């Protein structure tokens, strides 16, 4: 249940940014969560609901966008999406690949009033 720690970090950022922007109530949050991340969206939503009670983010909706795992081959520059957890280049077979996306855990924006 590391989602509790992640929800707390998220709430800290929301309270900080919300106050800085003169928002008294946060209505919704847009998050990006990479496919490779070990975060379970339902758990994150549950934990955030618990922790945000009594704060300006109480009742806020979490919109979670899953980001696919994309790699780039360092040998031939080919970009490919990873399926079946196969992290090697489908074009040249090289295992020297760089992760382009899939590890995200970001707050993109929020809506408030």
């Amino acid at each position: 249940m590391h989602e509790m720690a992640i929800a707390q970090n998220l709430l800290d950022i929301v309270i900080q940014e919300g106050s800085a922007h003169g928002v008294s109530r946060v209505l919704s949050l847009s998050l990006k969560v990479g496919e490779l991340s070990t975060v379970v969206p339902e758990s994150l939503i549950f934990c955030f609901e618990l922790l945000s009670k009594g704060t300006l983010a109480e009742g806020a909706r979490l919109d979670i966008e899953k980001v696919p795992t994309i790699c780039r081959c360092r040998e031939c520059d080919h970009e490919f999406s990873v399926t079946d957890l196969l992290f090697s280049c489908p074009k040249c077979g090289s295992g020297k690949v760089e992760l382009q996306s899939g590890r995200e855990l970001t707050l993109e924006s929020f809506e408030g009033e």
Partner: protein
Amino acid sequence: MAVKVPVVRNILEANEQLAQENSRLFRQAGLFVVNLMSGPGAGKTSLLEHTIETLKDEIRIGVVEGDIQSSYDAERISQRGVQVVQLNTGGACHLDSSMIKSALNALQLAELDLLVIENVGNLVCPAEFKVGEDVKVMLLSVPEGDDKPLKYPLMFQEASVLLINKIDLLPYVDCDVSKIRQRALQLNSSLEILEISCRTGEGLSGWYNWLRSQVSNRKTDATGAEI
């Protein structure tokens, strides 16, 4: 009226900033730091005991013991005569940078060459949290089966070294080490894999030599940086 505020911030940025601070402290002290991770019962504490016993006369070792509750492992380790700090996470499933930072007050970093952070036994949660380590080392034991890379891909991706433990049990368990190797390398082609048995000692010399070379590289780096 509702307003939309763009933010784009890494949710774990606070943890990662602290991890960088920890890492700076470690480098200043010329310390090589291993974040040791495994599922429960894979043999982390036993591996540590053997490692300390073998290397303590040539490498000054410190240990941070992460446990949800209890100090049983820390007591086992402290009997070996090395610096050890017990961290109880009080229910949390992983160690984070602030826990490690608080543990550092109890260690004489300048008197250490190697710090091993024994993470909480869990193959999911610790993979998300950097603590300021140089490398993540993952310990897997053969009774856990050969499908672990399929179930916990992130852990295998984040690790630099995979130790496959308890290979003395291979005749008795349903586990194909070549499958572990193949699946792990598909996830992380630069992963270094060593097969070991803490019971018979098989393969451990490879692990000790790897540690020796990492610690000595760090010492060279540190001296180089001072000049």
